[in-house]
């Protein structure tokens, strides 16, 4: 009798599992077809850190360097000099996105709200060097801000990262062949 009970229990156990899989088979799928469809990221979701500007388009950064100091992986590189009015002028602000771990500490420690975590995250590129984002690129992305800062993050225009990268590519082209310069393609960079 024990064997028979065992067999019945096994069959019931296995049948239960098959019921679940059959039910799930008939249910609509949950997949998001990523490149075509994108999930709506909440504001504050941490993509790459970008530089913010005021209404006139001037960078909010005062080159105080606290983000550079506090960055746990030391990927921020700032070069500045004293201007005529003794105020610091930002020359370079590079972030090495290949090593950045998107922790958001730079945005958090900035006393001027000059850095925010954008929602851009598709960083694929062909050259390692292109993953170092410069001041103008970071600022260009930051200028497309669509939402107020929430949780140290903002939303930016869709596809702005691609535009910035395309601008970089065309800039490289114009540098290689200066005779055929087409400044219009650099639009997103030189806003």
């Amino acid at each position, binding site marked *: 009798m024990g064997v028979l009970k065992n067999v019945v229990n096994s069959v019931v156990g296995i049948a239960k599992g098959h019921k679940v899989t059959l039910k*799930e*088979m008939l249910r609509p*799928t949950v997949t998001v077809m990523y490149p075509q469809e994108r999930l709506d990221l909440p504001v504050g979701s941490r993509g790459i850190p970008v530089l913010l500007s005021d209404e006139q388009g001037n960078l909010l950064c005062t080159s105080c360097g606290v983000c550079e100091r506090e960055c746990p992986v030391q990927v921020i590189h700032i070069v500045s000099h004293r201007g005529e009015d003794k105020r610091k002028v930002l020359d370079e602000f590079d972030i090495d996105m290949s090593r950045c771990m998107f922790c958001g500490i730079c945005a958090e420690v900035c006393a001027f709200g000059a850095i925010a975590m954008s929602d851009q995250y598709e960083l694929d590129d062909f050259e390692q060097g292109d993953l170092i984002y410069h001041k103008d690129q970071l600022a260009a992305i930051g200028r497309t801000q669509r939402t107020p800062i929430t949780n140290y993050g903002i939303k930016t225009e869709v596809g702005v990262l691609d535009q910035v990268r395309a601008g970089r590519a065309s800039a490289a082209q114009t540098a290689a062949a200066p005779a055929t310069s087409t400044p219009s393609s650099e639009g997103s960079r030189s806003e």
Partner: protein
Amino acid sequence: MLVDWVASLYQSVQATFVAHGWPLWVLAVLTAVLKVAGVLVWILLNVLFLIWLERKISGHVQNRPGPVYTGRFGLLQTLADALKVLLKEDVIPAGADRWVFVLAPLVAFVPSVMIWVVIPFSRGVQAQDLNIGILYVAALASFTVPSLLMAGWSSDNKWSLMGALRSAAQLISYEVPLILAELGVVVLAGSLRLSDIIAAQQRSVWFLFLQPVGFVVYFIAALAESNRTPFDLPEAESELVAGFNTEYSGFRWSIFFLTEYANLLGMASLAATLFLGGWSGPFLPPFVWFVIKTYFFVFLAMWIRWTLPRIRVDQLMDLGWKFLLPVALVNLVVTGVFVVL
């Protein structure tokens, strides 16, 4: 219709041969080649579809859509994969036993094609109606073991060797209940010939109803014979990396893959023939019935695969020898007594 047309065509060609005095063996060779080609095309088309079906079923079971990009509903996915696999580098490990390594996929693949010689697709549509039909299938199935042993041994990889040993143990253990379950049907039909078995079912009822126990034993053993989850121990990827085909790549690997699905299809169509009356059925054309019944078993096997975890090797042996074998024996004896009375 189609069958009659083919028969009349054959007769007219034969008449032409006789009229011109051409040797008849040329005709025999020609028809044989055509039959083989037909079977091969049938298997390849079906395997292409089966792999797609498996992916779709697994996808939907897991709340995923499965392949979608290649063609409508991703139907061309298998073709794309086949192309990719064919273009891959053919790696033969330095320590491999070269000839055995190369031969193993062939030894596995050829019998899985040869099984189709005796499968009746429709009334009279059968490459060769052998009088030992079932025995022929069983004999061919026994080639799988040496081929896997060859693959596992020649790869010169410990995982492969373990996979090969597992597969040998598994296939030998499950061949016995498989054949015993088939014998139950044979006893009922009184013939090993597959067309006779279908005829016997047309006379009475589907043997599924007369041989429910035999059917269950057959189905479990056939799953084990075709290395499908929960009995996919020879290639258990979470334990043995990929078992006997760890070292195989590119074309040779794809032959093993092809074999696996050809075996699944063969198993399903044999189950349809033995237990569900083969091509016989009302309203629809016989061939359609055959396909429907075959794919019913294919679906069942896939459903099981995407639901159950893998069984362990010793439990597999226990199940085979301590449960399936006695059950199949008792079933056979009871059937025999029943038939004699």
